[in-house]
């Protein structure tokens, strides 16, 4: 479905008041997402995960330099095509809950999402209500304003928005952050359900442990680099199936692997 080859990205920053320099945030990222699959991208915060998501959607802030090429369903994903497919074929579930307009009721925001996805103004309310119901959001929640919703409910409204667009590729950016376990599982299962319906789901998170149950493949990212892409199965035992040391260290550091980690040596640099 989606093919990313050697994607690299540079953003400007002001070293001093008048001197501007470029910093490399993504270097040579390559991965692909197949339909019906949940591909998890795991990395520490600041590894450039959200930027990857925005790069895919073509929503990067104006002054940026991007190299490498993206192909979606066989054709190259140019900026124009991105603009055309956004909301229809490509859907993004954003990281922060402040993506919901605080001044508009949730039901109406989902209806707008439906309209933007191509549904006619008449059918849009119906699809919106259906999607919200699908994510167990009752009438009161639908009429509520975003600040009146709990974290989980807001997250589900965002997912409903993606759902309404019947997009082929769904990119979820840190969907489980800040949720209690029960809400978290609910959201992740919803993503898994999307994958089962044949959509390609790119799950971006820093929480390896909870991404594993629903992910088929996992890519580890560090400081803008893709260290390794491994099938979910490789993450078991002491992680010997993993090729890179950092991935192994990450896996062993998890609490249920009793915190063992080769803490002494620094992580090797990929050549």
């Amino acid at each position, binding site marked *: 479905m989606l093919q990313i080859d050697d994607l690299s990205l540079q953003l400007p920053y002001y070293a001093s008041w*008048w001197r501007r320099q470029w910093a490399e945030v993504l270097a040579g990222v390559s991965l692909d997402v197949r339909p019906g699959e949940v591909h998890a991208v795991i990395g520490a915060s600041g590894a450039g995960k959200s930027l990857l998501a925005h790069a895919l959607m073509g929503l990067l802030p104006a002054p940026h330099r991007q190299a490498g090429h993206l192909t979606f369903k066989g054709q190259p994903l140019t900026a124009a095509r991105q603009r055309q497919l956004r909301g229809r074929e490509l859907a993004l579930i954003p990281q922060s809950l402040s993506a919901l307009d605080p001044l508009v009721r949730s039901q109406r925001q989902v209806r707008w999402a439906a309209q933007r996805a191509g549904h006619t103004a008449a059918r849009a309310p119906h699809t919106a209500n259906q999607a919200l119901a699908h994510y167990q959001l009752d009438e009161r929640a639908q009429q509520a304003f975003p600040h009146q919703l709990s974290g989980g409910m807001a997250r589900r409204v965002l997912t409903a928005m993606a759902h309404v667009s019947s997009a082929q590729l769904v990119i979820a950016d840190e969907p489980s952050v800040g949720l209690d376990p029960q809400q978290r599982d609910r959201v992740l299962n919803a993503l898994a359900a999307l994958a089962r319906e044949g959509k390609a789901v790119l799950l971006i998170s820093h929480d390896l442990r909870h991404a594993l149950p629903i992910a088929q493949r996992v890519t580890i990212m560090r400081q803008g680099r893709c260290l390794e892409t491994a099938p979910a199965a490789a993450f078991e035992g002491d992680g010997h199936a993993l090729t890179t040391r950092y991935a192994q260290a990450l896996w062993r550091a998890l609490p249920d692997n009793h915190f063992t980690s080769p803490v002494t040596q620094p992580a090797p640099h990929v050549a």
Partner: protein
Amino acid sequence: MSQPRLSALLSTALAGLLLASALIAAAGLGDTPRQMHFDARLTPPNLDFWFGTDALGRDVAARTLAGLTLSFWVGSLAALFGTLIALGMALTAMLGPRWDALVSLVIDTLLSVPHLLLLLMIAFALGGGTHAVIIAVALSHWPSLARVLRAELLHLRQAPYVQISQALGKSRGFIVRHHWIPQVLPHCLVGALLLFPHAVLHEAALSFLGVGLSAEQPAIGVLLGESMRHVSGGDWWLGVFPGAGLLLMVLCIQRLGETLRRAWAAR
């Protein structure tokens, strides 16, 4: 060097240059603004009188420059006094709840009267003239800045490092000197810079209405007031150039203020 930053720096330099040249040129004028050339009355702009001459044959260019300097000094003094009063009132508001209530009542009272009306009354109460304008502008402009400073100080009082130094037994004077004043100073500077163009414009308005500077001083408001009589007589240059001069000066001041504020915020 990024393009927007470069243009900002360039325009600031230009503004500074313009302002300085105006002030220096005006200093060198001496008596020319008062000289009357009876033979060359009401002549349109020409080679020896760049901005033409007024009904009494005085060179409008010289009078405009003199007027601009006058407005500049009146504006800066008014802005200075306004900021000092604002700082003083903000500090007194910190003395205690009763003081705070009194200060905010005074602020609300002054802010609820339309600006120009308050200016007119104060200037009139002082009998007109330069000092009246400076005091009037200062007295009517400090409330908005005082409100900002008061909010800042209230916020500061709860700041942890201030409470710690209080706990360490530092005297109130020490706290005020070492914590409050340095923290509030940037706001005062920004406030003064914002207040300056306002002060210059209001001084011109007061002189135009006839309460500001007396008719002999070449203040811009007076020049524009006089030119009102000749608008339909076809002598357009009497009003256009002084007004344009004032507009240019206020723009320069705004640009300087903007850049200083950004530089301070970026520090």
